[in-house]
């Protein structure tokens, strides 16, 4: 069912799988060493930019804007972070990021699970048309070009604020999540739900009391995907905060400061501290919940 679990199990099984005896064991050994060097080298390449980005963020400003700054911090200077937090208003941006992400994840979990459940269990009049339209919008994908109308619509609805940012972001991720949930529910047996219906549970009650708890595995996946999409989103908060800097999320705040920094590089240390503040939460969540990310990516790609 889930590619993640298969992936782990299969990965384990593969390693000790009996291999045909090779005559040139020396060559096999050499090949393993070369492969190990290449794989380690690639791991170094993947990590190097992040490590040096982090080192620069704890270096004194005069060092990183100098002509020969070296790779390691002259002295570990955490004041970049406290400066970013207090003087560059990043505390506010951080809170905005948390609020937007939280609203997206909560709305996503409730609204998408209801819609996915209805589409899996009902044959409503017009349902096929609705699902076709869902697919069309997914493939038309005007993405960045839609930001202007999205912002104008939010303004006319009176939600040109953090709530509006969350709703636009939710509209962007919702279709895939609904389909993941729909496919999951279709894979569940209906026996328990039928029993609840016989005992007098209405359609919504059956969803809330019976189906919702059973959906936990797929909802963990959509929560993780929603968190990634919303925390990292750049375009939506960028456009919403053009007229009102107080709506900036952490990522938009960092990029706005970087634009200023291009002029005199006066705030590069603050930019890098802010950039790392935006990266660290998702790195931590990723390392802890990796298997849910992996499951979400594989299922999202296969079904999407």
């Amino acid at each position: 069912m889930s590619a993640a679990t298969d992936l782990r199990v299969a990965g384990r099984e593969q390693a000790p799988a009996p291999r045909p005896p090779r005559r040139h064991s020396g060559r096999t050994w050499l090949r393993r060493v070369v492969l190990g060097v290449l794989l380690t080298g690639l791991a170094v390449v993947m990590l190097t930019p992040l490590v040096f980005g982090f080192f620069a963020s704890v270096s004194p400003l005069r060092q990183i804007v100098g002509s020969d700054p070296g790779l390691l911090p002259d002295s570990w200077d955490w004041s970049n972070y406290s400066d970013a937090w207090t003087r560059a208003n990043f505390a506010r941006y951080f809170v905005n990021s948390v609020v937007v992400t939280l609203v997206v994840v909560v709305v996503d979990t409730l609204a998408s699970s209801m819609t996915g459940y209805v589409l899996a269990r009902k044959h409503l009049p017009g349902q096929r048309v609705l699902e076709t339209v869902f697919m069309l919008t997914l493939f038309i994908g005007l993405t960045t070009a839609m930001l202007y109308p999205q912002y104008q619509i939010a303004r006319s609805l009176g939600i040109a604020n953090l709530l509006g940012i969350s709703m636009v972001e939710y509209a962007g991720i919702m279709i895939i999540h609904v389909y993941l949930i729909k496919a999951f529910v279709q894979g569940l047996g209906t026996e328990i739900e039928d029993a609840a219906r016989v005992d007098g549970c209405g359609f919504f009650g059956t969803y809330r009391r019976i189906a919702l708890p059973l959906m936990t595995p797929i909802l963990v996946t959509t929560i993780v995907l929603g968190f990634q999409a919303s925390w990292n989103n750049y375009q939506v908060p960028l456009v919403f905060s053009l007229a009102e800097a107080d709506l900036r999320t952490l990522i938009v705040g960092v990029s706005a400061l970087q634009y200023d920094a291009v002029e005199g590089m006066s705030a590069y240390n603050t930019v890098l501290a802010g950039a790392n503040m935006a990266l660290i939460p998702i790195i931590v969540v990723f390392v802890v919940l990796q298997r849910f990310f992996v499951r979400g990516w594989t299922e999202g790609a296969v079904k999407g």
Partner: protein
Amino acid sequence: MSRVSVVGAGRSAPADQRGWRRRENAAAFAMLGPSLLPYIAFALVPVGWLVYYSFFRWNGFTDPTFVGLENYQRVARDGEWWESVVTTLQFTGGRLVLEIPLALALAYVFFRGVRAESLLRTIYFLPYVLSPAIIGIIFGFLFREVGGQFNQILEGLSLISAPINFLGDATNALLSLISVGVWAHVGINMLLFFAGMITIPRELTESAAVEGAGEWQTFRHVVLPMLMPVARVVVLISIIGILRSFDLVKTLTDGGPTGATDVMFTYIYRFFFEPETVPQIGYAAALGVTASVVVGLVSVAYLRVVRRAEA
């Protein structure tokens, strides 16, 4: 009432049954509301909005003027726009040429089993989790010509004698964008290929080994053909995603130097939000619709090519 009719639907009066069904459907429709409302307001209406205003001249403030197809005629003549389309295609081609073979090779290595598998996998996936906008900002810093970390490392290893101007030269800037894109996405493509490989029946690879096939032969003649259905989808998703790029390009080069790395959506963005004089909403909308058609055409062309190659 309704409770009884659920169980004894067959025995209850038709009118009662209809009332029950109506209540059931009403509940179901109500449950669609919380996701349909944001969807309609922010995914469906904006599409119609863009198509509608692509036939108008409008600066976003005064009254729009209907101009028919004028905006589209201007798109056809807009040399800078088609340059950005070409850049987008170059970016896509460059990314795919590097990313897909590398991801395939890594997936196969993991498929055959390696040590420290889960640690390596975590490291390879990590860049994909991160915000492309922040990645652009950090790489922009590391790519600096004077004092940039990459130049320091390359000079330290004596690989170059003079610092490379990574972002200030048109070709270099595009190559830098491609490299960062590959860096960020090779892990996810590896994962998707791997997930496809583990569905291949084990007997096939085993019998290949028994018959004395080497690793390359096993990969080329057993794994790759079986993987094709998955690979086709993975590549298509990559193509669509890269054609729609915005965040990384915006923060790493912002289309620079002088528009040389503008991709479709960074070009369009300017007409909406960063105009030289006044916003040109109608024209930007026409560009957006055109971009969507370009993405559609490239996807269809790709699917035709792979289908022909397989036939």
